[in-house]
């Protein structure tokens, strides 16, 4: 009997198995050279010589491609080997009987880490159960998406109620009597927020180019959030910084450079986003593993090459009131009260309390509420957080909006919703529905990566952003891997996708008779799911 090693990691423990057809392989080596994870390597195997009849010399050595068996270099199913193979000799096949998560924990005493978004997929997608059901036909005719004028702009910044605007009627002429918090009119989609570090500088640059192009050439006032990782000085000192929302999170990464650049800045940034939490891993801080901390990442962030773990909370912010004070003193003052300061939190059972507190803040300084749902993506997280913590975006957005309505303060702190938008194909539909439910706008990060070529999906494919070995060169700082990404092509794809989304948004606004954004127009939505209808207070249909 042959000895079987049960307790060693074996190929059938892994989530993906390499299917290799030796007869088609020409031994060119492209597949193994391409695999960023080192999951396949050339190897020598023995074969019985064809036609051999003697016992002696009956075996011959052949070169084959062999799957590596290990936690660090197992196959993620990215499919790059299949892409480069000239003969279709190799591909990754999903192993439905894998035992990886059990083996990893039992062997390493570590939690599983990954990138991407939750792969548990138990929640179902509420947004897909909602349809746009109120179609204008006769009493308020449908508009023409291609010919009518539509305004896709939303305020970003603190909005005050009409009686606090400081507008006085003096003999029939309106005059302003006070300065108000800054407010910008922007496109209802915000790109980001992913840091230089989490994504490659090439990916980040492509997003920045697309943002500038959409603004300067296409007339779409879209904004991009930097993520917590700083921003190149050259961009800070250029006029294009006006399209960037600078993020500050608990690690404060990159802010030394921003402060240094302030005297030389020629434009104010579009806004400041204080990240308190994120939907993919609420309660966790940022997590940039050392292998992604390239030299330029070190320079921008001012850090050594080490795992960069942002704390779960901002140091010193122990209450909402204190958070508000900090924002008041630091971020608003930093740009002399000319730049809206917003806050980003993970959707949570407690989101309404947070939103209410901000709404009632007497200093009126919070200029936006970014609510991030559990289907959001991340560059690196513990799988336990990714799959098992967080709150769905749709009902929590609705709760926050309705809390504002109850106080007659809807729109005073614009809500931007994100987390898993475009997950099932249509970003525009998701955005439109969330806007109808009360969002002023939406934000998306993961989708942008997929537009750029990310092959990861929500059924355990790739999602190895945390390793720094992204086979698409998107979530990596490896020079060879990032070269795979064509910056101009990615920028073009991003621009095209936003243009398509813009058209599709108009294709939803037109039949509902809206020439401006239908913020809070929940009467336009219907659902065949009674529970969804009851929870969101929209019309149930059958």
């Amino acid at each position, binding site marked *: 009997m042959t000895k079987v090693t049960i307790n060693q990691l074996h190929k059938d423990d892994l989530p993906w198995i390499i299917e290799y057809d030796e007869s088609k392989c020409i031994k060119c080596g492209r597949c193994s050279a391409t695999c960023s994870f080192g999951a396949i390597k050339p190897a020598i195997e023995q074969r019985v010589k064809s036609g051999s009849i003697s016992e002696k010399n009956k075996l011959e050595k052949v070169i084959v491609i062999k799957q590596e068996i290990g936690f660090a270099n197992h196959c993620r199913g990215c499919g790059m080997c299949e892409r480069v193979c000239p003969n279709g000799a190799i591909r990754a096949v999903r192993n439905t009987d894998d035992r990886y998560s059990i083996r990893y924990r039992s062997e390493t005493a570590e939690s599983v880490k990954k990138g991407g978004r939750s792969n548990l997929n138990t929640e179902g997608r509420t947004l897909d159960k909602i349809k746009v059901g109120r179609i204008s036909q006769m*009493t308020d005719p449908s508009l023409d998406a291609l010919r009518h004028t539509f305004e896709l702009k939303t305020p970003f910044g603190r909005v*005050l109620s009409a*009686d606090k605007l400081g*507008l006085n009627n003096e003999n*029939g002429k309106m005059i*302003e009597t006070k300065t108000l918090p800054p*407010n910008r009119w922007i496109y209802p989609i915000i790109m980001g927020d992913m840091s230089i570090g989490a994504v490659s500088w090439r990916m980040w640059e492509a997003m920045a180019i697309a943002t500038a192009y959409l603004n300067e050439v296409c007339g779409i006032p879209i904004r991009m959030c930097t993520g917590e990782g700083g921003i190149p000085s050259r961009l800070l000192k250029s006029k294009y910084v006006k399209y960037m929302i600078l993020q500050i999170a608990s690690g404060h990464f990159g802010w030394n450079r921003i402060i240094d650049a302030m005297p030389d800045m020629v434009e104010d940034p579009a806004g400041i986003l204080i990240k308190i939490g994120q939907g993919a891993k609420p309660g966790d801080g940022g997590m940039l593993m050392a292998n992604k901390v390239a030299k330029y990442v070190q320079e921008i962030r001012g850090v050594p090459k080490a795992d960069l773990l942002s704390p779960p909370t901002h140091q010193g912010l122990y209450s909402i009131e204190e958070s508000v004070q900090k924002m008041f003193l630091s971020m608003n003052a930093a740009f002399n009260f000319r730049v809206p300061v917003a806050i980003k939190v993970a959707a949570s059972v407690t989101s309404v309390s947070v939103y209410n507190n901000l709404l009632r803040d007497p200093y009126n300084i919070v200029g936006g509420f970014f609510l991030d749902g559990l289907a959001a993506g991340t560059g690196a997280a513990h799988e336990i957080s990714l799959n098992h913590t967080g709150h769905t975006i749709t009902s929590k957005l609705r709760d926050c909006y309705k809390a504002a309505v109850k106080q007659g303060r809807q729109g005073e702190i614009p809500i931007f919703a994100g987390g898993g938008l475009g997950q099932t194909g249509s970003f525009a539909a998701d955005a439109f529905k969330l806007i109808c439910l009360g969002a002023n706008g939406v934000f998306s990060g993961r989708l942008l990566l997929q537009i750029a070529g990310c092959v990861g999906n929500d059924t355990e494919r790739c999602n190895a952003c945390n390793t720094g070995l992204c086979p698409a060169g998107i979530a990596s700082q490896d020079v060879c891997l990032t070269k795979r990404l064509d910056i101009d092509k990615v920028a073009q794809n991003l621009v095209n996708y936003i243009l398509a989304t813009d058209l599709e948004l108009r294709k939803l606004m037109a039949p509902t008779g*809206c020439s401006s954004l239908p913020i*809070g127009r929940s009467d336009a939505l219907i659902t065949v799911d009674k529970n969804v209808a009851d929870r969101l207070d929209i019309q149930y249909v059958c």
Partner: protein
Amino acid sequence: MCRIGAIKSKKNIRPSTALKLMRSQQEGHDDSGFAFVMQDIGGIFETYKDLPILSMAATIEGTRLAEDILHDIGFTRVLQWTPDINNKQGLKINPMPNYIFEVLAYPKSHKYATKEEKEQLLVDTSIRLRKALDENHSGYIYSFWNDVLTLKEIGSPKDIGTYFNLWDDDNELCAKIITAQCRQNTNYGIVRYAAHPFFLEGYTVLANGENTFYEKNRLYQEGLYKGYLGFESDSQCFLYSLHYVNKILKWPLEYFMHTVFPLSYNDIDKRNGTEKEILLRIKASLSHLSANGPNTVLGVLPSGNLICVCDPKKLRPVVIGRDSDTVIMTSEVAGINDLMPNRDLTKDIYPKEREMIVVDDNLKIERIVQ
């Protein structure tokens, strides 16, 4: 489509004039109701301009309930006028048992009250009456204000006119301003409250079209002021927005237009510094009062000025015709042709999109382009 009309004259006019104005536009409505508001009233009410007139329709129980509430607050009846009913067979009308139009004196407690205090008393009393009548479905209160009289009824406008003897030019009702509509609300339930014109604290509004942002408007207005009630029609939102902007915020009239039909950001961006800043503040702050059309709005202000406002889509018709004594704003020119066949046609005005027309007491017309 709704057909709406507003008449302002230097001389007293009668409800029959409003009926005639709407009759020739009959093909554009469904013959389902008739409602009018009279302001700057003449005839038997002329001598009571400083006292409020209660306009209501109620059951006997509702009438008693209302009388008890008014008595409880301290109002005393000065004059009651009941229309002369012609209840002949075959009229297409669904009448209420009682129609009450009465002039009331303010309670003694308000003898030295300011104008504002008196107005608040009328608003509070109206709300209390409405709630009481709503609770046991015993009637409708249309207006309770100085120098204003309202009637709303379900049925054929012609037959409603016959029932109330409104065709008779010798009846006692006349006023210098009459606004009217010949149709019940079609978008939502047919209830008397849903018929235009809508009235609140001296402001009267009628609207042709559908308010696409009704839901947003309603949710915002419900918490804005105690008098913003009902919402049986999406067009009521225009009344409340007008009232809010002009009366509560005390902003100039043109800002009503900037609130319900805000200019696009790109258009505002072209304005000068101060104006741009003001318009952007309003656009952001009152985005939940924007209406998004398609609408033509007619209205009467507490000053007695008539207004007409056209939305940016300009999908709903309106025309203004005039002679030396009278100005008429209405949906179709056919109505004006019937009443003023000999007017100077070249003086007719067809307002453009984003235009507001204001007619003052001297019938002087001001055109304000947004």
